[in-house]
């Protein structure tokens, strides 16, 4: 248990002393997660909105599939994406293997079902009276769409936070698609895996705490948004 305390001390040491490897991993982590969350939200929120808003014959089965995809294991996604980007694979010539955009592709696949599923739920839980009110004020279809989106903003934000948390902390995709290359595709989570594998548990704990601090900062700034709007 000693490495727990050691880890705490080391975490602050790494951050305050500006340890280059740690900061490189932090930057890599932030870049990948930012790319993937932006893609996932841009595509996922409109799809989730439509899934929640409209009634169509395949609604129930689609919903079940989306919910199931929320449980995709990250190593599984990592394997799939690797087999796409490997030279012999269908997208071999993209040059995306062992790169940050490549990992971001995998993480987008991870985040998308979460965003779609939770967005759909938050649209569905909007009061029926809202639709009546908006139309009675003279909105056209486009205005109705955006007004309902805005009214559902709290639920949509929650789905973004959930997806971001998942993406920030995954290892499987980063490892398989990124290759854990120092300075280039080593994220905090893959670094933790590496240190733990080397038996250096205190370093693993330290990096884990660094990750928590990042997550805390992100959520702190999001809570400002939540309160202002």
């Amino acid at each position, binding site marked *: 248990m000693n490495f727990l305390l050691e880890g705490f001390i080391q975490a602050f040491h790494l951050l305050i002393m500006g340890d280059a490897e740690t900061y490189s991993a932090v930057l890599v982590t932030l870049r990948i997660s930012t790319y993937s969350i932006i893609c996932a939200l841009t595509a996922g929120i409109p799809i989730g909105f439509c899934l929640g808003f409209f009634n169509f014959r395949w609604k129930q089965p689609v919903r079940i599939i989306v919910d199931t995809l929320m449980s995709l294991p990250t190593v599984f996604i990592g394997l799939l994406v690797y087999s796409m980007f490997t030279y012999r694979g269908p997208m071999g010539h993209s040059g995306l293997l062992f790169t940050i955009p490549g990992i971001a592709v995998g993480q987008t696949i991870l985040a998308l079902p979460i965003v779609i599923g939770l967005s759909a739920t938050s649209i569905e839980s909007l009061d029926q*009276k809202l639709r009546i009110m908006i139309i009675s004020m003279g909105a056209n279809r486009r205005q109705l769409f955006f*007004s309902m989106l805005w009214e559902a903003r709290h639920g949509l934000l929650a789905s973004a936070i959930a997806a971001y948390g998942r993406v920030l902390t995954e290892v499987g995709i980063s490892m398989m698609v990124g290759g854990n290359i120092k300075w280039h595709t080593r994220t905090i989570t893959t670094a933790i895996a590496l240190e733990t594998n080397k038996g250096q548990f205190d370093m693993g704990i330290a990096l884990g705490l660094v990750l928590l601090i990042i997550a805390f900062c992100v959520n702190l700034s999001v809570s400002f948004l939540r309160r202002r709007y």
Partner: protein
Amino acid sequence: MSYPVYDIRSLKHTYNNRTVLDIAHLSIQKSSIIGLVGPNGSGKSTLLRILGLIENPTEGTIRFNGYQVEPFSSKARFLVTLLPQEPFLMKRSIYNNVSYGLKLRGNVNDIPSRVKESLFTVGLSYEKYAQRPWYALSGGEMQRVALASRLILKPQVLLLDEPTANVDAHSELLIKETSLSTRKTSGTTLVIASHDMQWLYEICDKVLHLFQGKIYESGQETFIYGPWQQMGDRKWGKELSDGQILYVTEPPRKDAIAVIKALPITESIVDVRKKAADLHGTISRLSLEKNSGRVFMTVLVGDLRLTMKLPFQNNYSDVFPGKKISIRYRLDLLNWI
């Protein structure tokens, strides 16, 4: 040629295999005030939603100012607005709620003073209410804000669904006053659904009775529910709470509803037509019908409320609330539905 604001033909609306509305023809003139009464489930709210172009009827055509319209039609969406029964606001400040419709129309000149004026009309102070969030109001205040957000749009048609049903007395008064004044100042057409028949008869040009999806005009009819019992040989009726028997012809079904038109009788007329029935009751209310100048009377007979028009008289001193009176209805004019 001036078109009626609404010209509706062959309107049928079904929901879950149930026919909710069945109206062959309905026409509403510009700047008129139309009342809508009927028991719960009669289709009032549905009709208002269809008039408000929020729902598309299963069958039928709606012409608005001569143009055929449906939900989102550009010819109508900025001109019609509906105030639903339950107070409801969007998740934003009062100011943003009231100005929402204006922003939709791109009508953004001088919004603050218009919002202030609107809130003033419904009795709310701009300084106190404008920046409040949507959850910081009572039900009555909410409904007033909802009304303000519609009045600010100066709509051509204002549809009100039980506007005073879920609010406090003070809000009720304000809402009633404000709705009427829009008609005075802007010539707005009003269609109001309400249980407050008295109020409707006071202000409306026409009151439509909606019953099981069909419209019955005039309002002199009273709908009476069963259960019906056979009271001896070829006589059917229902016992009222005060022991009187309301006689009817043979009902076509056990759950049939009787539609009777009652008239008051005075002592000077002795009418012994066999095909009539008399009831004794007490006058509970009197009101003046707007256009015709006729006096409307509500008589309490047991647990029944019968509404009828009085013939023109010079002197109404012999009718007053609390007076015991006899009324008569003709069995051969009795309808069943």
